[in-house]
C-alpha cells in the first residue's frame, strides 16, 4: 500500500525565515497531492494542492514543488510567522480515491 514519509519530524525556524517541509511518497500512481496544516486542537486545514502534470504551484506565501522522478514533494513557506506553527501533512491521492493517507506529519515550530 501507499506509504508516506517525512524527512524531518520536527522543524524549528526563526520567525521571518523561510521553511521547507519535505515529503516522500511510494505510490508512483499518485497523481494529486494535498498539503494540510493542523494547529493544536483543530482539524487539518487545506493549504495547497498540486496535480502530477505540474512541478510547481504557488499560493500566498506557500509554494509546493513536485518531483515525480524521485517521488518527492516539498512545501515552502516564505517569511514564516508564529501562526504557521502547526503539524503539516502531505497526502498523495491516486485515481481520485478518497482514502487519503496521512503520514505522521512534520511539526513546524516558529521561534520569535
Amino acid at each position, binding site marked *: 500500500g501507499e506509504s508516506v514519509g517525512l524527512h524531518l519530524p520536527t522543524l524549528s525556524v526563526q520567525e521571518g525565515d523561510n521553511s521547507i517541509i519535505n515529503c516522500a511518497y511510494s505510490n508512483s500512481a499518485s*497523481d*494529486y497531492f*494535498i498539503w494540510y496544516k493542523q494547529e493544536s*486542537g*483543530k*482539524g*487539518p*486545514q*487545506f493549504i495547497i*494542492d498540486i*496535480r502530477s502534470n505540474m512541478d510547481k504551484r504557488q499560493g500566498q506565501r506557500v509554494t509546493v514543488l513536485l518531483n515525480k522522478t524521485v517521488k518527492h514533494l516539498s512545501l515552502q513557506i516564505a517569511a514564516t510567522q508564529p501562526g504557521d506553527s502547526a503539524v503539516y*501533512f502531505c497526502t498523495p*491521492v491516486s485515481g*481520485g*480515491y*478518497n*482514502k*487519503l*493517507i*496521512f*503520514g*505522521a*506529519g512534520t511539526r513546524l515550530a516558529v521561534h520569535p
Partner: protein
Amino acid sequence: GAGVSQSPSNKVTEKGKDVELRCDPISGHTALYWYRQSLGQGLEFLIYFQGNSAPDKSGLPSDRFSAERTGGSVSTLTIQRTQQEDSAVYLCASSLVLRQGDSPLHFGNGTRLTVT
C-alpha cells in the same frame, strides 16, 4: 460560513460503555469521512460515505465500530463496549464531491474520546 461541526467536543466514558459521536457536514457536501488520530500520530482512515452509502468500511478497527449517515447529511460513529485503546481524537470531514481532485476535505475540530 458554517464549517463541519462535531459533537461532543470532548467525551469521557468508562470502559465497556457505548458512545456515539456526531458529525454535521457542510451543507451540500455529498461525501463524508471519519478519521481517528491518536496522540502525536497521523490520521487513520476509518470510513467514508458517498451520500448515505459507505462503499469502504475496511478502515473500521473492529466490529465494535459502526457508522451511519442519514438524509445525506448528519453522520454518527458508534463505538460499542469501549476499550482504552479507543481513546483518540475522532475527526470528521466532508467534501463537495467524492473525487479528491475536485474538492479537498474540510475537517471538523474533532471529538476527543477518553476511555477510563
